[in-house]
């Protein structure tokens, strides 16, 4: 095997409410790459993410994460894989009854036996890593803005130093400046921590700034490639996506 594949999806079929979302999808994510998943509303981008991390049961197909068959994994083996990935849900999904620092420490408390002092330190390191001010540690999720909640959620996802990071619409609902900062942050973290990133997004700027390859979900199937490759795809939706007015504005370098 020449490439190191961390996520492998084979022949995936998902049906939701009698509606086929994915019809025999294949996908392989390489170690250290940033993969963007795009598609129209209701094409099952988030469902694909949720299926890979085991929150949704597929109707058929095989999902392999870090070499483990996710559909068969149970108990400790499953928890072992779960500690090697981090998930950022759309609005951060922070536990509302706990402060940001406590949120970050939840996985540490559950999966390690570090002394409290070191956990406090690690929590503040993660806060610094995602660019949150130190004062945010004491705050409750309801006291944070949307952008800060996402950063705090990212800090929690990074708590155990995962190998894979799943991001569900990381820049949705952020203003362009925050969104840009988030893009840079993800790219930086990905480089310095050597993360593999699986990212569902709508944001064309994010796609250009952060991703190595893009998976487009359309007509229950998946088209995979770099931006350059996909711009030549003949499927009308993909063509419209990358070559429509918004796509061109975001993806093409400005004319000097």
């Amino acid at each position, binding site marked *: 095997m020449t490439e190191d594949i961390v996520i492998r999806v084979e022949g995936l079929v998902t049906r939701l409410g009698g509606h086929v979302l994915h019809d025999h999808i294949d996908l392989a994510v390489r170690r250290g790459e940033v993969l963007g998943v795009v598609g129209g509303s209701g094409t099952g981008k988030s469902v694909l993410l949720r299926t890979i991390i085991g929150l949704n049961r597929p109707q058929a197909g095989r999902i392999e994460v870090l070499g483990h068959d996710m559909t068969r994994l149970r108990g400790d083996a499953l928890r072992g894989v779960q500690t090697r990935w981090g998930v950022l849900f759309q609005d951060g999904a922070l536990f509302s009854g706990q402060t940001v620092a406590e949120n970050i420490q939840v996985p540490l408390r559950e999966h390690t036996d570090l002394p409290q002092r070191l956990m*406090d330190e690690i929590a503040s390191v993660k806060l*610094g890593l995602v660019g949150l001010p130190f004062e945010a540690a004491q705050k409750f999720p309801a006291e944070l803005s949307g952008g800060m909640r996402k950063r705090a959620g990212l800090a929690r996802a990074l708590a155990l130093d995962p190998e894979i990071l799943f991001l569900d619409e990381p820049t949705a609902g952020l203003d362009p400046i925050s969104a840009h900062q988030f893009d840079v942050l993800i790219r930086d973290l990905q480089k310095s*921590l050597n993360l593999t990133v699986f990212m569902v997004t709508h944001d064309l700027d994010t796609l250009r700034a952060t991703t190595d390859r893009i998976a487009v979900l359309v007509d229950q199937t998946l088209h995979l490639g770099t931006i350059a490759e996909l711009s030549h795809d003949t499927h009308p939706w993909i063509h419209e996506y990358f070559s429509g007015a918004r796509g061109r504005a975001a993806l093409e370098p400005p004319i000097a």
Partner: protein
Amino acid sequence: MYTAHAMTPAIVPPHPDAAASFAIAREGETLRMSLHGRWILAETRQLDGALRALRTAGCREVEIDCGGLERLDTAGAWLLLRTKRALEATPATVMVTNVPESLRPLVETIERGCTAPPVGPFRRGGFVRFLDQIGGAVVEMGHWGLDLLEFFGRVANETVGTVLHPRRLRGAALIHQIEETGLNALPILGLLSFLIGVVFAFQGADQLRRFGAEVFTVNLLAVSILREIGGLMAAIIVAGRSGSAFTAQIGTMMVNEEIDALETLGMSSVEVLVLPRVVGLIVALPLLTFYANVMGLTGGAVISYFDLGITFPAFLRQLHGALHQGTFWVGLIKAPVFAFIIALVGCFEGLRVERNAGSVGRMTTQSVVASLFLVIIADAMFSILFDLLDI
């Protein structure tokens, strides 16, 4: 070359065979610290204590040699950085050398990200916090009472406006509320009232039989159910069913900004949402109370027949004798007041919902607790009033 223990005997570096370790050596004025193995989260526990205990023992220069590092994650990088900063404060000049190329971005990121002084204690605790919480709760309750009073004023104000212009009362919404809070509550309220009647009849019969006064079970039933239990049962069921529903409905509309949309369209949320609910419940609850009374007495009559052999006509005769004119009305007159309290608190809590989903649940719980609390206080005040009036 000195060995580490010769120089700083207090420190026992982790065993060199461990997955992660460091060794210390002294060369003249320079302290050389070389890191080995995998400095990752799983190993930080054993590194932590030894690194904290590290002292320079008078060395002016410290060199941290990272050449032996196999792996590094953020936790390990933090330990490295923390140690570096602690030694720099001794004061000494600290150099980090030989960082493997692949680990360099991580070390730089951590160094850049963690400019804030790490960590004070994250939470306050103990007695002060306890007092703080009590004080906070008292103040909050005071504010709650004032806000409720203000809302009462607003509703009263709009009610006057609606009475003056009856066409502003929304008929369809009113009928819908009466159906929802009144008609749809009949099955559950009927069953529970019937069972309460059964329970009271059993208990009464059991006690009164000792005095040979079983027939007075009917009097006990009549007075307790008509004066108190029927009305309270209806109020409790309605607070649980409808008061909570009011809060949840209005609260969800708050979350979706529907209330804001209403107001900007020139409609009053009190007029559109609150008045139909308040008026509807004021109509429905007295009817429900009457129904609960009937069902409670029926339950009592059934047990009286099977347990005491009091036939239905005899039950009615005894009932007739037990009641004086006021008993029935004393129970019923409280119902509109209870209805007003439940609907007012339900809507009030709904409008206090903040724009997050958790808030809806919290306010719904609070609405039920607060409305039952106020209903029982009102009931106690009615008892005192009736006592003074000799009813």
